[in-house]
């Protein structure tokens, strides 16, 4: 199964090769959606974990034992369909084509699994129909 989580690393854990450990010890594949990591700073990773449910739970438990904060409620982009006018301006700034206009109906389509929550669409929207849930 797949699970999207946000990992917050204390400064000392930044040195640890976490994605390697997840793969090697727990057989969990980690797809990095977004990362903000620098030496001697608190790091943040938004990742999609893919693996067996028990192994994934064990992996999350292990990360928590290493003082990594694992948040299951990850930040998401929300589209208010009542406000949206389907102008499509956001589709031009979306780097992953999570936001596209349907080629037939020209209705805005949001594919959550493609979204990297870069939030560039939020200020681009002229009718303030896009927000995050945080």
């Amino acid at each position, binding site marked *: 199964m797949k699970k999207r989580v946000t990992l917050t690393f204390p400064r000392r854990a930044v040195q640890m090769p976490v994605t390697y450990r997840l793969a090697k010890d727990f057989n969990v594949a980690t797809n990095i959606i977004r990362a903000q990591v620098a030496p001697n700073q608190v790091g943040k990773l938004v990742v999609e974990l893919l693996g067996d449910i028990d192994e994934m739970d064990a992996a999350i438990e292990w990360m928590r034992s290493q003082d990594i904060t694992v948040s299951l409620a990850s930040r998401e982009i929300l589209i208010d369909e009542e406000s949206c*006018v*389907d*102008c*499509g*301006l*956001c*589709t*031009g*700034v979306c780097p992953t084509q999570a936001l*596209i*206009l349907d080629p037939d*109906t*020209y*209705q805005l389509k949001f594919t959550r699994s493609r979204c990297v929550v870069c939030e*560039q669409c939020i*200020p*681009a929207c*002229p*009718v*303030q129909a896009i927000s995050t849930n945080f």
Partner: protein
Amino acid sequence: MLRTVAEINEKIQQQKAVVLTVEELKARVQEVGVTQTTQEVDVITTGTFEPMESTGAIFNLGHTDPPIKIRQCWLEGVPAYAGLGAVDLYLGATVMAEYGGLGDAEESRLNTVLPERGGGHVIEDLIAGKPVQLRALGQVTDCYPRPSFETTITRDTINQFYLFNPRNLYQNFIVGVNGGDRTLYTYLGPLYPRLGNAVYSNPGAISPLFNDPQLEIIGIGTKIFLGGGIGYITWEGTQHFPLQKRLPNETPIGPAATLAVIGDAKQMTPQWVRGCYFKNYGASIMLGVGVPLPVLNEQVVAHAAIQDQDIVAPVVDFSIPRRVRPTFGLVSYAHLKSGQIKIDGQMVRTAPLASIRLSRQVALELKQWISLGQFTLTEPVAPIPGDRTFLPQDRWGSQRASE
């Protein structure tokens, strides 16, 4: 002439008129050709839904007791123009709360005014029937002794309330890109550096004025769909530039004709009148406008059969903020709608700014009105001029000084 407007109106009243949206018409012409389509169809409906900055509302407040001659006025902190009759006001779509001041003793209220709101949002609220706070300062005279007035208004507590838009319905526009190295915040939304994206703002071949390229069948007095209510074309729009270069199919290669329109805002609905805001640029308004084209002869159908691949717009670089900006040449609307265009060998993502979905819906709604006999057509009372140049504004005498 095959049909007259009077004959079409007779059919509309009997609910026997054959009405096609402009997209249905284009498809029909592909199938059976211009001649047969002309025989079959009485009316073509076109529509657009896009930001139209040069939009504003005129309203009459009604007289207070004792009366006031309003000289300064704010609606939800957004200034309205008061240099008309005592309680006549004009609220432009692009005025913003933070510019123009709020008058004295407004400090505390200033904090509650959202800077991302402007005249367009206030117009939308009034049309939606929401209460709007009004504050006015008057010039004290013997006729009008009251110095100030504060109240809350709605669309039902004011007299006339109509949109009078000096420039709507641009016939074609530009495509904005940014060849510079920092993000630009424009009236086309954010333009990313190094040709990061391209924005086009006209919905293309379905847009009303692309389908009557020389404004032969519409003119002053033409009845239209405006913001969900009935409106009329009143004049040429500001910056009306019919002499723009044109392709052999008579469509212009850049911004050309524009129209001034008017319509009763009390009939309008917030679905078709939406305040909007472009980050670091300012407030504006998105409007749904629909224009019916009577099928008087074959030429009307031939013009309206135009497709996205037959019309073009110039790709303009916003990184040089001058009156004449450099362009990367022309691109067809078919390419723009494909989602990417090639500029200087680089693939660039395109995004529209007009809502193509809602533009289609305007045409559909107007089709429904006509089919049900609720909307008849008018003949223009005067043509829109076809010979206007587009003057730049330079300092008086600057040409002589540089010689």
